[in-house]
C-alpha cells in the first residue's frame, strides 16, 4: 500500500553509540503515511534506541532523517512534536488524579478568559474519542479508575491532539488482557485509516501480524530484514529476530550477492540480510 510514494519519515544510515556500546549501526527505516510499520527485535536489539532517536530524546550520532521530504535534525522531544512526530511511551504519562479530559489536554489547556474552557475541552475530547471509536465510559472519570486498555487509549488519543503525521507506540499492548489488546489494536488501525504513519514496537507476533503492514527487524543494533506482512511467515520473522538465518550458508549467499552487485552504487549501502 506504500509503493511508489514518498515516505513521510525516512531514516538512512542511523548510528548511535553509548560509550563502548554500539547501540545502532547503519539502520534504515521508512514510514509511509497510512501504514503501520512494526519494529521488532529481541531485547537489546536497539528498538528503544531507535525510537528515542526518532522522537528527539537522544538524537543519533550519524545518519540522516528526512521528514516530509525535508532533511531535519530532531534535537529535542519538543522539536519532534513541532514537526509532527508524537510518541506514546511504554510507561504511560498520565495523571491518575485527573479525569480523561484533563489528561488529554494536559499542558495545552484551552482557556476562556482567565479560567479554563472546560466545556470546549470536554466537547473536543468526546469528539476525538468518538472518531477513534474509543470505549471510555465517561470523559469525566479519573484516569485511575480506567482499565489498562482504556488508559492506553487515552494515552494514544492524547498524542493525536497535537495533530501529528507520525505516531510512535512503544509496546502499547504490553501488560494488557486479550480484550484490551484488541481494543488498542483497533485504535491503531483507526490511526492508520486517518492517514497517519504508525511505528509499532512490539514483542508480540500476534499483534504485529494483526495490524502491521510491514515489519522491520532489528538485531544487535542493525537492520536484519524488512518484510511485507503478507509475504512472510512468523517463523521467518522470528528467525530474523533471533538470527537463526545467520549460518554459513546464508552468509555465503549474502557475500556472493554483494560481490555481484558491487558495480551497482545503489546497492553498496544495503545492510539488509544480516551482519
Amino acid at each position, binding site marked *: 500500500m506504500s509503493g511508489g510514494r514518498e515516505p513521510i519519515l525516512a531514516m538512512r544510515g542511523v548510528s548511535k553509540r553509548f560509550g563502548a556500546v554500539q547501540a545502532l549501526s547503519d539502520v534504515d527505516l521508512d514510514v509511509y503515511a497510512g501504514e503501520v510499520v512494526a519494529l521488532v527485535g529481541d531485547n537489546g536489539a536497539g528498538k528503544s534506541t531507535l525510537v528515542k532517536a526518532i522522537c528527539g530524546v537522544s538524537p543519533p550520532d550519524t545518519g540522516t532523517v528526512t521528514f516530509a521530504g525535508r532533511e531535519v535534525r530532531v534535537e529535542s*522531544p*519538543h522539536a519532534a512534536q513541532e514537526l509532527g512526530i508524537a510518541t506514546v*511511551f511504554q*510507561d*504511560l*504519562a*498520565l*495523571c*491518575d*488524579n*485527573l*479525569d480523561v479530559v*484533563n489528561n488529554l489536554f*494536559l*499542558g*495545552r*489547556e484551552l*482557556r476562556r478568559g*482567565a*479560567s*479554563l474552557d*472546560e*466545556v*470546549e475541552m*470536554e*466537547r473536543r475530547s*468526546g469528539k476525538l*474519542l*468518538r472518531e477513534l*471509536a*474509543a*470505549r*471510555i*465510559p*465517561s*470523559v*469525566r*472519570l*479519573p484516569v*485511575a*479508575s*480506567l482499565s489498562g486498555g482504556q488508559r492506553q487509549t487515552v494515552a494514544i488519543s492524547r498524542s493525536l491532539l497535537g495533530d501529528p503525521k507520525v505516531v510512535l507506540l512503544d509496546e502499547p499492548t504490553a501488560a494488557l488482557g*486479550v480484550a484490551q*489488546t*484488541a481494543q488498542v*489494536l*483497533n485504535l491503531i*488501525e*483507526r490511526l492508520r485509516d486517518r492517514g497517519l504513519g504508525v511505528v509499532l514496537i512490539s514483542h508480540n507476533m*500476534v499483534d504485529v*501480524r*494483526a*495490524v502491521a503492514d510491514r515489519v522491520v527487524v532489528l538485531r544487535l543494533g542493525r537492520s536484519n530484514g524488512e518484510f511485507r506482512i503478507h509475504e512472510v*511467515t*512468523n*517463523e521467518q520473522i522470528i528467525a530474523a529476530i533471533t538470527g537463526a538465518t545467520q549460518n554459513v550458508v546464508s552468509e555465503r549467499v549474502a557475500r556472493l550477492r554483494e560481490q555481484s552487485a558491487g558495480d551497482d552504487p545503489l546497492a553498496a549501502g544495503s545492510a539488509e540480510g544480516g551482519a
Partner: protein
Amino acid sequence: MVDPVTEPAVPPPTPATELSSPKEAVGGWLQTLRTGDIGSLPIIIGLILIVIVFQSLNPTFLNAFNLVNLCLQIAALGIMATGITLVLMLGEIDLSIGSVSGLAAAVLLVTHVNHDYAPLLAVLVAVLVGTLVGLIQGSIFAKIGVPSFIVTLAGLLIWQGVQLRVLGEQGTINLPPAGTLVRWAQFSFVPRWLAITLAALAPLLYLLLSLLTRRRRAAAELPVIPLWLPIAVAVILLVLLQLVVAKLYLDRGVPWTFVFMVLVVVFFDWLLRRTAYGRKIFAVGGNIEAARRAGINVDWIRISVFALCSTLAAVSGVVAAMRLGFANQQSGSGETLINAIAAAVIGGTSLFGGRTRRYAPLLGALVIGSIANGLELLSLSSDVRLIVTGTVLLAAVVIDALVQRSRTSHGR
C-alpha cells in the same frame, strides 16, 4: 500459526460509542459527583456532631457572642490552611508556616510601632517577608533537590530565630489599642444590610454561573446536570447563610477579617480548579513525570507554590497579630502549624498529593476552630487541649491514609 489471530483486525467494532449515550454519560457524571463534590458531606456531618457535643457540654457555645468570636478566631487559621493546602497538593509539606507567621507578626509590629511605618506599608512589608522566605525555601527544594520536609524543618528553626532577633530585647510589642490595625481586625464588622445583601447575592451568583455553564454544555451537546440541582443548592445555601447572618447580628455581626478569609479560600479554590496554573499543580501532585512530559515547568510550579504558601502564612500571622493586638516570642509557635495542617487534611486535602475537596481550608478551619473554641469554653487545661488537637489530626491523617489505600485497591 500464520493467521489465526485472536482479534480479526478489519471490522470496525462495537456499534455505538458509550460516550454518545446520554444514560451512560449521566451515570459517569453521577459517579464523579459521588467521589467529588458530595465528598464534603462527611466533614459537614462531623461539624454538626462537634457542635452538638460542645453545645450539650456548654450551652454558651452556640450563642451569638461566641459564634462571632469563633469567626474572628478562625480567620488566621483558614488563611494559613489555604496556603498549606497548595503545598500538600504537590505531595510536599511546609513545616515552617508557623514560624513564618510569627516572623511576619514581629516584622509588622516592629515596623509599625518602632519605626512608625504607615499601617498598610507595615502590612505589605510583613507579607513580602513571607513571600521572600517561600521563594528561598522553594528554590532550595526545587533546584537543589533537598526534601521539602528538611528544608522547611530547618526553616522552622531559622525563622523563629529571626523572629526573636527582630523582636529584640523587648520580647513583646503591643499595638496601640485604638490604632488602625487593631480597629481593622477587632472592631470592623460588615454593616447588617450589606451582610444580608451579600448572603443573598452569593447563592444567586452561584445559581447564575451554574445555569450559564449548563446552557453552554447543552449548546455543546454535553451531558448536563438536572435543572433542580443548582436551584436546590442555591436555596439551601440562601436559607443557611441568612440564618447564620441573622444569628451573628444578635451580637456584633460578621467580622471583615472572616469575610477576607472566605474570599481568600474561594479565590484559591478557583485558582486550583479553574485555571491552567491550578491544573498544573494537580498534575505535578498526581504524576510528576507526566507533568514534565506535558511540558509543565515543574521547578517553577514548586517554587511558586511554596512562595504562595509562605505568603499566606505571613498574611495569617499579620491577621492574628492584629486581632490579638500584640506580637511576642510565642507568636506563631505551638499549635499554629499543626492546626493549619489539621484543618487542610480534615477539609479533605490528601497528604499524598494531587487531591483536595472544594473549600477544604474553610471547612477544616471551621472544624478545628470549633474544637479549639469549645475546649476553651470548657476551660480545660492545655494538656487536654493538646491531646485532643493531636488526636483529631491523627484521626484525619489515618482516614486519609485509609482512603488512599482503598483508592489504590479499587483503582481510583
